[in-house]
């Protein structure tokens, strides 16, 4: 089964995916409509948007492994939307932080970013996400050139690690299970990429007794992916 959608089908798939990605907004809109966000509305909004940011981050990171394993290259064409939705929820998360926690007071926001390590990590991840969102269009790809664009977008990997650290640092010791689950998911997804890279790397001919495949030069950020 190697289904490849025609342009019409792909458009339909994208519309459906767009609608699905909007679904996490439903509970927030419902709470706003009924005026009942529970006892701690700020925490509720922050946790919900944060959870969906990292969910979409992990889903975005799943696209390439899924494409390779399933042999469905067209899946890559859904990646941009997933990445942009990750940014969308991250933006809501950030707005909830600056708006509800600090009522947009710049000095208080800055102090918080320096004072609380988990805020520092979250802010760093958000800053790293900005250029990726900004360059998520054809024009930027053309402007940067495919290879440089790709290298820029590899910052999603450290970003995912920082996002996990952010999550670990903000939960209580009694609730480590969720950040642990996300960290394992991210480790698997990044580990898969490292392994792919090792697998595809061209063995360097070596003199002497070294067997082929034993030495694998791995230059993570400048090697041409294939």
């Amino acid at each position, binding site marked *: 089964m190697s289904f490849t959608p025609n342009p019409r089908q792909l458009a339909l798939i994208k519309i459906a995916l767009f609608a699905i990605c909007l679904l996490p907004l439903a509970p927030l809109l419902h709470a706003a409509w009924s005026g*009942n*966000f*529970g*006892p*701690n*509305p*700020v925490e509720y909004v922050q946790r919900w948007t944060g959870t969906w940011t990292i969910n979409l981050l992990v889903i975005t990171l799943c696209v390439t492994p899924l494409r390779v394993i399933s042999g469905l290259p067209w899946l890559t064409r859904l990646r941009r939307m997933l990445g942009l939705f990750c940014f969308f929820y991250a933006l809501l998360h950030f707005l909830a932080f600056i708006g*509800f926690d600090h009522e947009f007071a710049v000095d208080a926001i800055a102090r918080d970013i320096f004072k609380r390590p988990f805020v520092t990590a979250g802010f760093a991840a958000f800053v790293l996400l900005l250029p990726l969102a900004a360059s998520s269009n054809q024009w930027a790809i053309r402007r940067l050139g495919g290879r440089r664009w790709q290298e820029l977008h590899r910052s999603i990997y450290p970003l995912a690690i920082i996002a996990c650290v952010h999550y670990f640092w903000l939960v*209580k010791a*009694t609730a480590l299970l969720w950040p642990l689950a996300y960290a394992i998911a991210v480790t698997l997804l990044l580990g898969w990429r490292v392994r792919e890279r090792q697998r595809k790397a061209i063995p360097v001919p070596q003199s002497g007794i070294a067997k082929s495949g034993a030495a694998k030069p791995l230059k993570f950020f400048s090697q041409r992916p294939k």
Partner: protein
Amino acid sequence: MLIRHRPDILPSEITTETLYTQRRQFLARFAAGLGTLALPGLSTSAAATSEKPFASLQSSPLSTRDEKITAQSNVTSYGNFYEFGPDKDSPAKNAHRLRTAPWSVTIDGEVKTPRTYALEDILKWAPLEERIYRMRCVEGWSAVIPWVGIPFSEILKRVEPTGNAKFVEFWSLADPEQMPFVRLPFLDWPYMEAVRLDEARHPLSLLAVGMYGEAMPKQNGAPIRIVFPWKYGFKGAKSIVRIRFVEKQPATVWTKAGPDEYGFYSNVNPDVPHKRWSQSQERRLGEFFKRKTLPFNGYAEQVAGMYAGMDLRKYF
């Protein structure tokens, strides 16, 4: 071959579903009924006609009247009761394990006759009142809660503290069978907080047995807890089993846990920050934006006199 056994229970003996589902109401009414014994006129009508046995109580002139009462669901679903777990939703999840009847309270130490009282006897000592108070948690959230209870000063009239009594300790239950988290050592169990005798005698100090017109929910400290509305919430011990009068200022559970973070007095004070956060603002349960915290939680007019001449930064 089909062997027919006589059923263990006759169908006629099986409790109907409607009755079964009403058992909690019944228990609540029963528990509430304990309280209304003190009010003969109310006891039958209030307890029998609604789930809100205390609904018809008159609100006291000491009630806070100019503020919106926090939604009951927020107050019962969010809070700290570490005996039932460390998270804000732990009490609502785990407090069902608490057995609130029968309940007795030992009143001992520097009193004329130390002894143990059944809860229903204590509640006969004075009529119940509704008191709407602001509640400010040391963590920075707050609520406006209609409590039901009797002024603690009424207790003092009955138990007659001796001349040596200077402080009052309130001890919570610490039964690992009912309160699984007292097995963990993150506080020095049992939970005990104390106040000066004159603070305990203050008209605002309330021994509460209910809220929102109902018997006290387990997660909020059933069946009996103490409320000092001008102090941070943790000073109000829940599920009290012992009240002890002592001469010397005791080391309370939170001063032992963090002497530089939690003072003995712990009066709400926007000008004295907690070591790790500011106390100048608070967020009402259910609201998005913070509001200013008031000195003595807005009760300065009534209580500030008790601290005249004291350096509130030193005695925080």
